[in-house]
């Protein structure tokens, strides 16, 4: 079975984001970027399926600026086989990403698409669901366990009430949650081997789908500073203060 794993290049989770002075977005100049942690989990799961002999080929795909190639290399160093870089400028919204991925899936015909449930930059949590709808494939979102058996993909999902298991008839779309696995580190020899693995580059425009943004960003601001607290004499004062503040 072939697996397609979309991966996104995002601001590194250790970096404290700074808003651009003109409030149009987060300042990404000279900021450390890395693979979205949820995407890492998706790559790891694909590699484990390959190690189990279930998956034969792992194709990773990234949509974004040219440097997203580095993110593909990371996935290749973790064990993916080849990469597809689809270059696009600016913010590509989830629906646009899903449309491009559908086109890629039509071409590649994977048995499974594994992707992160959300990206830590915008936290949208939409791409996987939209992609499943566009492909008209079954979906298993927020996976904490994935078992491929007898042509079915059994996905244990993390839901509000606990866990739910769904059995999907492939081909299917699965989005990964945090507890699915612990991604491996890309080893030195594998980083060097990844340099020789193929990466195909295409332009987003070549897919003939409409990727123009549908949302307008009015402004991006820092969260309000937490204000200093206040000490009160006794419980009665506390209660009256809370009432005055409309909290009770």
């Amino acid at each position, binding site marked *: 079975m072939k697996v397609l794993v979309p991966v996104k290049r995002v601001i590194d989770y250790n970096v404290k984001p700074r808003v651009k002075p003109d409030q149009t977005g987060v300042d990404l*100049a*000279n900021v450390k970027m*890395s693979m979205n942690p949820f995407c890492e989990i998706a790559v790891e799961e694909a590699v484990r399926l390959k190690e189990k002999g279930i998956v034969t080929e792992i194709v990773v795909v990234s949509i974004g600026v040219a440097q997203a190639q*580095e993110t593909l290399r990371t996935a290749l160093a973790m064990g993916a086989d080849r990469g597809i870089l689809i270059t696009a400028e600016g913010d590509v919204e989830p629906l646009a990403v899903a449309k491009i991925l559908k086109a890629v899936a039509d071409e590649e015909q994977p048995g499974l698409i594994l992707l992160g449930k959300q990206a830590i930059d915008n936290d949208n949590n939409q791409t996987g669901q939209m992609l499943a709808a566009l492909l008209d494939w079954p979906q298993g979102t927020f996976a904490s366990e994935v078992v491929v058996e007898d042509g079915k993909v059994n996905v244990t999902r993390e839901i509000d009430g606990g866990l739910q298991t769904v059995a999907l008839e492939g081909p299917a779309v699965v989005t990964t949650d945090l507890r699915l696995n612990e991604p491996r580190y890309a080893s030195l*020899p594998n980083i*060097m081997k990844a340099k020789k693995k193929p990466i195909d580059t295409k332009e987003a425009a070549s897919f003939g789908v409409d990727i123009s943004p549908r949302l307008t960003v009015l402004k991006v601001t820092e969260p309000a500073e937490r204000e200093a607290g206040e000490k009160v004499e006794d419980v009665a004062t506390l209660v009256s203060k809370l009432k005055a503040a409309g909290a009770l």
Partner: protein
Amino acid sequence: MSLIANRRDVDFMMYEFLNLDKVFQTERYQSYDREAVSAILDTAEAIAEDKYLPCAAKLDANEPSFDGEKVSIIPEVGEGLQAFAEAGFYAASFDEDVGGAQLPGIVNLTLAGFFSAANPGINSYAFLTVGAANMLNAVGTQEQKDKYLGPMLEGKWSGTMCLSEPQAGSSLSDIRTKATPTEEGHYLIEGSKMWISGGDHELTENIVEMVLAKIPGGPPGVRGISLFIVPKYRVNDDGSLGAKNDISLAGLNHKMGHRGTTNCLLNFGENGDCHGYLLGKPHEGLKNMFHMMNEARIGVGHGATMSALAGFLYSTKYAGERLQGRHPQDKDPSTPQLPIIEHTDIKRLLMAQKAAVEGASALLYYCTDLVEEQKLTDDKDAQNRLALLLEILTPIAKSWPSEFCLEANKHAIQVLGGYGYTREFPVERLYRDNRLNHIHEGTHAIHGIDLLGRKVSMFDGAALKLLLQEVQATLSATSEMSALGEYNKDLEQALKVLVETTETVKAHENVNTQLANATIYLDAFGHVVIAWLWLRQAQIATNALANAQGDDVAFYQGKLAACRYFFRYELPKALVQFKLVSDLDETCMDLKPEHLTGNNPL
């Protein structure tokens, strides 16, 4: 903010201070480029961050123990080393033909730094294994390499260096361990080795102890010392493990720092059946051990620098968060307190750390680059020049960081005030860890004697001359840079004093008097070297500032500020010290043991 690495400074050292891009263009390293190096360093930093750093305090509080049978160590140590092995880092710097990744030495130094900043107690096991494997690779027979090298480079077996004995620490010529040849070809080893780091544990399937011993009938002193491979378990011809060799752990030492690394008193041949295998030629043991030791000495200096870096990063972060007091001119108690990083004295304490850490780093990168260039050239003259520079700089590269980066750890504690003195914060542990470094791999005094008694005069002063030329080159290159004029002049002056002091000492007839203040000379000499490297960094920063943008502006300004600090606050101390040395001051030499307390301790 990372507490173990400053990646911007790492990039500065690799690509601006050194020219790693040029190294990528050589045939040997052509498969590497900036992107690959960055990915490799990301992996190293992540493993150090995830597996080494979180257990550092726990490992310090729960040192390895010995129940008379086996050594127990908290499981995090094995897990950390496993991740290190799986990442392929044991074999990183080795040649491809022995299964290595042929990683440029400069990158390997950087990578190792993350682990040593995060947790030196775990890092030592890997560091010693790589050192032992290197020595084996350099002087071993093909058969020996086939047998031992593979598992060591996979991290399945570890390595040690066994020089010291209870009665012979600084004075290696007095070792007593004996190696008696047998008809079967192996030697029987008999004797005790003290202080052996990683000497015993259950972390790896086997331990390859590299032991210095004397073959009876050989020349006296260091010329009669040979080197032996002495495995904990004997190795069969097919590579499988055989019987346990006759090595016993007599006990563990309970140390001030580096507590995660077992430190062992090992008895070899208690039952007369400890097999050892000669490595290299008989009586050339010390020379061959230097394959491991010279590298280890740069490594010790680097370890000292990394402990200081961790303290610097932690105390800088703390100083930005701790609110305390107001500026001297703001007396109004109703105004908010300041983050202490705004107090000038805290800035001084932080700057002192930065100047020590980044000054020492530059020296270690420089030395590592010399080692790298040795690998890259076939030219005999160039080889000779590089070897001489390394000869004279190795005692400095080991000793200056050990002394002044320890001082930096002291400052880190001070920044934290009372909190820094407690075990709830890492800075006191970093200080204790770092305190080892001017004791092992030759004490501070021994390196002072080595520098002043041997290195500055070797081959008619050839090594010193080469170093002076290097410094002169920087002076010439910066002579027209007006912003650096003051430093240029000060360094030229200090260099002149260094040369005059050296000449004066060499001209004196009594060797004891010559070397009476060798340690002081070592410190002062180191200060001149570090001042030189700060001037080089300032030169690069001045040029780069012209086109710098964003955070880079502050980065380069910080380099200039640190250069200024070093020249104003530190370099003048060297002049006072050189005066003492060139006066051939005998204050300490004249001291009689009974002067100390009124009783004679002898």
